[in-house]
Every structure is written in structure tokens, then in C-alpha cells.
């Protein structure tokens, strides 16, 4: 499998102004993220709010350039100093956002919304654009007469279909899906997930699927990257991650997800506390204040992702074979 995205120690820093007489503070939203996405696979990125998944999505779609490190997408390298050939890449990577109500301009007709990427990136005539837009509408399961309607006339699921049509119209290779189904009801969610699976097979797309819903991720992903406070803590193939989660945070996350099986209740790892502030992260492993396995080494040193095998974990407890009983 060819790597289509390679991230090499990518970081993103936001400056927080603290008033006239204070020095600006650097908030590292993503820290030293290194990972590879293979062509045609679905890499799921999971984590709680504030773990940097959306910042990562913004870098992958070139809304922002990485502050440190390098990102190679489809053979083109982007760094903070050298934004590279971003114009060409913009049509290679497209994004679908979480909230289909906010992502579509209410004053534009559906046709205009879908054609806008073509207007900006290609020199097609109006007739050709319209034809492409109608093909895209058909592709996502909408009808040609929807071309002239406004977004408010559609339900949430249909709006998400419009957003997907807009994302695929430039024939991208990579689609970044930022929580594409979390605003939708279960029955509509299933329709959209099926549509995404169809499109991936038909168009050979690579998906970067950002979600906090582990049951959705289990269904769609080939590999999963778990992030905590800006850093990847575990990267593993989906079957391995669910069968044998290694990092204590992954385990807690899995056990916190409510199972739809009344017989399985009450086997939960209770995590205490909340995500610490990324402005002032704890020393050592960033998970140590909430980790049931933390010891002195975890509070002093920071674990790196292990290099070996398909499953990579950043944890001393896993490395040393410490278990909850000890």
C-alpha cells in the first residue's frame, strides 16, 4: 500500500494574547504527530474535545500550515516555511464538516454551493459545471431537481449529502471527514455511512475520519489513531485496537462507550478528572494525572510512540508490562 499522507513530527501552535503587558503564550494544539495514511484506507482519529483532532484536520486540508514538522500529501511536502504547491493540493484534499446546518450558505442555492469549488479551481464553462454538479448530486443520492433549491429545504441527512457532493466534485483523492455523522440521528447516520462506503469503493478515496464515537469508528475504519492532548498515544489496526487496546487511555475510552447490551453494564474503568488544559500540560506523560497505572517515571519522562509492529503505543506501563493489579 502506497502512503498518500505522511506526517513527520507535525505540530501546531496557537498564540494566546494575554493583554498588553503580558507575553503571548504558545498553545500547542498538536504536538509531534507522526503517522502515515495509506492510499484507499480509512484512518480514524479519535479523542475527546480539545485533543487536537480538528487542528490536525485543518492542517491536512491546508487551512493552516504546520508550525513545525513536515506534512507530505500525495508526494508534495508542506512545511511552515515552505507552503509548497498548495493550490494543486487543495483539489486533492477536501473536507466534510460536522454540522451540516452551518457548513452550507443559506443564501446560496444547492447548485451554486456545489459548483463553487469548480469556479475557483477549474476553467469549465457554466454548462459543464452544471453537468458535473448534477452528476455529483446523483452520486450522493439526491435528485437533479434539488439543484435549484435552498439548503433550508433539506433535512440534516440531505444537507450532509450536499456537503459530500461539494467535497467530491473536484475528484479529490483524500476526504477529511470531521465528525460527519455526529449531528445526525441513528437511522440517518446509517444512510450517510453507507453512502461514504459506496463512494470510497467507487472512487477509490482515502478517508481521514475524525470522530469521538467509537462504535462508528469500529464500523468504518481500517486503522485508528487515538489522540490525547495533542499527541497520538496509540495507532493500531481497527481489529487489534478493539480486541486488545494497549494504552490505558484507549482502554478507558472503550469502556466508557455505552454498549447496547443491557447484560454488559457495570464493567467500566472510571476515569477521574477532565482533560488538562493544553496551555499548561502536566509534566511527563500528559495522561498521568488521570491514569490508573501512572508511577514516578510517567510523571517525569514523556513516552514516545513505539516503532515496532502494526500497533504503536506511547506508554511506559505497556512497555514495562505494568498492570492494574500491581
Amino acid at each position: 500500500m502506497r502512503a498518500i499522507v505522511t506526517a513527520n513530527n507535525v505540530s501546531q501552535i496557537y498564540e494566546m494574547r494575554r493583554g498588553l503587558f503580558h507575553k503571548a503564550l504558545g498553545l500547542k494544539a498538536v504536538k509531534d504527530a507522526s503517522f502515515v495514511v495509506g492510499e484507499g484506507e480509512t484512518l480514524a482519529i479519535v479523542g475527546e474535545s480539545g485533543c487536537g483532532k480538528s487542528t490536525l484536520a485543518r492542517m491536512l486540508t491546508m487551512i493552516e500550515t504546520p508550525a513545525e514538522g513536515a506534512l507530505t500529501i500525495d508526494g508534495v511536502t508542506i512545511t511552515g516555511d515552505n507552503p509548497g504547491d498548495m493550490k494543486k493540493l487543495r483539489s486533492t484534499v477536501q473536507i466534510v464538516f460536522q454540522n451540516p446546518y452551518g457548513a452550507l450558505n443559506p443564501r446560496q442555492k444547492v447548485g451554486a454551493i456545489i459548483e463553487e469549488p469548480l469556479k475557483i479551481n477549474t476553467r469549465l464553462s457554466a454548462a459543464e459545471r452544471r453537468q458535473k454538479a448534477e452528476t455529483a448530486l446523483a452520486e450522493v443520492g439526491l435528485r437533479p431537481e434539488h439543484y435549484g433549491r435552498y439548503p433550508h429545504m433539506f433535512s440534516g441527512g440531505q444537507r450532509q449529502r450536499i456537503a459530500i457532493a461539494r467535497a467530491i466534485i473536484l475528484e479529490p483523492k483524500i476526504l477529511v471527514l470531521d465528525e460527519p455523522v455526529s449531528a445526525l440521528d441513528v437511522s440517518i447516520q446509517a444512510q450517510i455511512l453507507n453512502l461514504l462506503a459506496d463512494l470510497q469503493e467507487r472512487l477509490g478515496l482515502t478517508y481521514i475520519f475524525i470522530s469521538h464515537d467509537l462504535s462508528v469508528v469500529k464500523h468504518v475504519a481500517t486503522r485508528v489513531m487515538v489522540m490525547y492532548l495533542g499527541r497520538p498515544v496509540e495507532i493500531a489496526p481497527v481489529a487489534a485496537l478493539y480486541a486488545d487496546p494497549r494504552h490505558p487511555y484507549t482502554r478507558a475510552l472503550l469502556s466508557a462507550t455505552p454498549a447496547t447490551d443491557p447484560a454488559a453494564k457495570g464493567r467500566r474503568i472510571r476515569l477521574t478528572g477532565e482533560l488538562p488544559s493544553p496551555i499548561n500540560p502536566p509534566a511527563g506523560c500528559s495522561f498521568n494525572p488521570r491514569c490508573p497505572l501512572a508511577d514516578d517515571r510517567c510523571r517525569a519522562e514523556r513516552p514516545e510512540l513505539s516503532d515496532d509492529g502494526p500497533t504503536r503505543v506511547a506508554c511506559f506501563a505497556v512497555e514495562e508490562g505494568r498492570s492494574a493489579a500491581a
Partner: protein
Amino acid sequence: MPLLSLSNLAVTFDTASGPFKAVDGVDITVEAGEVLGIVGESGSGKSVAMLGLMGLLPPSATVTADEIAFEGRDMRAMSGRERRKIIGKDIAMIFQEPVASLNPCFTVGFQIKEALRAHTDLDRKGRHHRAVELLTAVGIPDPERRLSAFPHQMSGGMSQRVMIAMATACRPKLLIADEPTTALDVTIQAQILDLLIDLQKERGMGMILITHDMGVIAETAERVIVQYAGQQVERQRVATLFDAPHHPYTSALLAAIPERSTGRRLPTIPGVVPGQGDRPDGCLFNPRCPKADDLCRSVMPHRQTAGLGEALCHYPLNPLVV
């Protein structure tokens, strides 16, 4: 005597295009110390029914019922003054968006003490003491200091804990939790659910938990009501609902959950929930139902027996083997 007993509750909204029945024929009984779950997709009227009970709907809504009794007292016959003594004290509610439900202009302490001022005869010191006690009970560290914090200074999980503290301030007998964890992360959701269940057990409260998440229902509730387009389509015990759903809608809803699927494609329910303009004749689920026939398209089904999940369906699934 049940703690709360509603029968044939209906809520009708006056809209520009005529009256719209958002909730129809809802029956609910809750015993003390019991957790009742209500599930349904958006637009199924699960929140509206509860807001109707609490009297929190806008004037365009008309609430009718054959019975609304709390501890055997008829709430329909009560004066507004009498009803307000119960609402907020004996019946309390937690809302979906904790951050939007708190008033940004007042401190958290003020808002908790407001409930105590309205419903108890504690003095100022007593109220302060009780507020600290409440914040401790919901697991907020450093409660003395947190009382003077404003809502924007707290995270979503913390705000929801404050909402729970407010709702439980007067030791309610019935707590209505409307999607209490939908806006929260999974690890925080687990904490909040544990907290709610702990409080409910400890005080023997009755609780109605409204959610769209079948997983949350499986973990917390004892009985469950499945609502579709304003009607209760199935009422069952949680222990049996997941294995043997009786209404086709419940069955389809369960099948659409990614966790329970096996193939690459999920079984879906075609179409959408009917809105005001496109209510079908007969069973409301018939346009989306794989088993619908002419009877379903013309005659409104009657309710089946308890052994069939009281399903509102002509042809219930998983009939009992006699």
C-alpha cells in the same frame, strides 16, 4: 400509587399552517426509585412531552391529558401557584445543553441558591452551606471557591454537574433528564451517568431519562419507551428490548447501530420521520416499514398486549412462543 402517572397526554402546536400534534396518546407511569428511559430520534416528541408536563412550552402549545397525577394529586386541577410549588421542587429537570441552560450573567452559586430560596425556608447561611454540600455531592473540586465562578469559567462537564446540583437542590422525588450527556465527551458522559445513577439510588428518586442513544438506555434504564413521530410505539423492559424488539421501528433502529452490525453496509430505514405536512394514513411508520400492507396504510393500529411490548403495530415482531 405511582409517583407520576400520565395518560393520553397530547401536545398540539398552533402553527401558521394549522394545528400540529407533536405528541399524541402518551402514557407514562413512574414508580419511586425507578429509571424509565425514553428513546426516539429528533422530532419524535420526547422532549416536548416532558416540557408539557413541566409547563415550559410556549403559549402556542396546548397540552391535554386524561390524567396528570403526581403522587396521586391531579395536576390539571391545580392553580398555577400550587403547581409551581411542585415543579422545581418535587419534579426537577436537567436539560441537554448545560452551557446554554445556565445564565451567563450570574455566578453558579447564585443560581443554585435561587432554587433554594424559592422552595425552602433556609436562611442565607443555610443556603450557602447547602450549596457547598450540593457541589461536593456532584463531585466538583474546591466547591467553596467554585460557587463564585461564572458559567463561562467552567467546562461542559462541570456545567452539567452544576445543573445536576441545581436540579437536586430541593431533593426532588422525580428527576427528568433530557439528553443529559449528549453534548459531552464519552469519558465525561460516563462520569455524569454514574453520578446520576448514584444520586438516584441514594435518594430513591424516580428518574425519566430521555435520550437518542440506545447505549445509554442499555446501561441505565430499567423500562424503556420507544417514541416515533409523537407516539409511543413500544414499551418494554430493557433486559428484553435489545434481544426481542416487537415494533418494526425499534428493530430497525437497533439494526442501524454500527456496533451491532456485521457487514460493511448498515441496514437503514429508508425515508425520514414524517413532519407536519406529510402524515400518512393508518400507522405512522408505514411508509418506512418493510412489512407494511394495505391494512397498515389505512387503519391506525391498536396497542398490543404487554407480552408483545405494547407495540403499536398490526403485525408485531418476535411473538411469544406459547
